[in-house]
């Protein structure tokens, strides 16, 4: 599934947070969006999903497989969310429903979009959990009883359980330690490629981006300031902002 964003703007309280952003994610492509925190990355992903609450004004076009989604009513967007597009959030501890069990969380998109029997759902959930590396006995534990890395695996399972064609990963590794980060990125990449889906991977960390994407956009203060193959951006950053982010990533990886 391809997603094309054209001249996207997001305004909040008289302030322009996302300013005239144009970008595309081709079918089966893994594309990165990098910027320091506060540059408006999350706003873009939430605009695509239709998750921005009242008060945020979204302008421009977002084409999801030929459908313009900006301005679609919430109940129509809901049909797309969790079926056509899956999303993974930054901090699983703040995103997973704390009163749910692992299985209860993962089966939610199935419940909402598919007419399956309990048994069928259960089988699909267990299969998905196995794919993200969580053994069966985790299924009935409360999500709060898991570690951060395990919780992010649950979040990935939730996003992918319906085999969506487009995945948005919004800083999926930021809340994790560096060993876990790599595991999660590798897992995500292999699962997305396995599905043949496309992915928009958002991060502020170039070192993560190199693993996850082939092509990237650099966002600064709501505008796209640079774009290109991730490897090229990393090796020979031409724009000042990109250079700063690359330097930061290199310093961090030295640690």
């Amino acid at each position, binding site marked *: 599934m391809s997603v094309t964003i054209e001249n996207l703007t997001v305004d909040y309280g008289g302030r322009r947070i996302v300013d005239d952003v144009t970008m595309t994610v081709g079918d089966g492509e893994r594309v990165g969006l990098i910027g320091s925190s506060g540059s408006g990355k999350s706003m873009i992903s*939430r605009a695509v*999903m*239709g*998750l921005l*609450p*009242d008060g945020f004004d979204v302008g421009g076009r977002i084409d999801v497989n030929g459908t313009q989604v900006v301005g679609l009513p*919430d*109940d129509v967007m*809901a*049909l797309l*969310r*969790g*079926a056509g*597009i*899956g*999303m993974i*959030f*930054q*901090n699983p501890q*703040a*995103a*997973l*429903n*704390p*009163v749910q069990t692992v299985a209860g969380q993962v089966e*939610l*998109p199935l419940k*909402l*979009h598919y007419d399956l029997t309990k048994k069928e759902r259960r089988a699909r959930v267990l299969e998905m959990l196995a794919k993200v590396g969580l053994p069966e006995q985790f299924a009935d534990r*409360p999500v*709060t*009883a898991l570690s951060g890395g395990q919780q992010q695996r649950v*979040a990935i399972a*939730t*996003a992918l359980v319906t085999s969506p064609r487009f995945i948005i990963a919004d800083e999926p590794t930021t809340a994790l330690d560096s060993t876990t980060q790599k595991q999660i990125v590798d897992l995500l990449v292999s699962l997305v490629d396995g599905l043949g889906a496309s992915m928009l991977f958002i991060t502020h960390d170039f070192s993560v981006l190199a693993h996850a994407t082939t092509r990237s956009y650099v966002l600064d203060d709501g505008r796209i300031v640079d774009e290109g193959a991730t490897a090229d951006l990393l090796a020979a950053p031409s724009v000042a902002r990109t250079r700063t982010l690359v330097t930061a990533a290199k310093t961090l990886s030295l640690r």
Partner: protein
Amino acid sequence: MKFTLQRLGLLVVALAVVSVLIFAAIRVLPGDVAAVMAGMNASPARIAALRAELGLDEPLVVQYLSWLKGVVTGDFGTSMLTGQPIAAIVAGRAAVTFPLILLGLAIALVLGISLGCAAVLARRCWVRSLLQAIAVVGGAVPALWAGLLLILLLGSGTGVLSVLPTQGFPQDGWASPGRALTCLVLPALTVGIIVGASIMRYTRSALLDVETNGDVIALAMACGMTRRRAMVTVGLRLATPQLVSVVGLTFAEMITGVMVVENLFALPGIGTGLVTDIGQRDLIAVQGELLMLAAFFLVVGFAVDVAHRTLDPRLERAA
């Protein structure tokens, strides 16, 4: 479990402290308790007899302990005015007050939670603003005034729609349930509107809190829920611990409204009774009634805290 036991210990300590405070409040009364209770024109012999009867010549500690012993065995003493056991009097009054509280609370919860959700989720902006305005203004209305306005609107005799009784309670109490219930409708509506307004505000802010703090709502929506559905199912559930807490506190404040309303509608409840007893200086009765009320609220506070802890998985885990 550990938390519950600790909180239970706290409850016992608080009960003890409060009982001492109430006992002290009666005893620091300027002048002689017996003289006050016997009334202005009592003879010295009557006062002395009363002193002996109440054990007021004993040391304070002995008096306190013997009162406490009675309380623990359910003996709160007898009323000076009627000679009836205080426990029985309070039980009779509670048969009016508790139904009033429960009915009021039910109205408040239904109004507060549904309108609170609507104040967040209504499609039109002006509806949300209007609901928010109603909640804010409702929180500023004195219970007495709300009661009076309802009387003017619905009360029989004075009301624009003269439909509901505004004074008293059937002599035979709940023996005629229909009449008893109609007598409670206006008072309960008064309490329900006042408390409902604050529950509405809390519901609204708790829901918005759940939405803005963390991505639980966003994830539920990302799974395919509409915002409305995510807020009503997931959001309300996550807001519950917070709501239980504030409703518990609101409940404690609700009693002021309940007492005012009982007086306004001339219902023979605990509030009216307590105010009358204080006015008539029936101090033994006052002492027992204050303790029972305080104990009731402490137990409610305990229940609320335990419920809050049980309902919030994050707290459970932190403990």
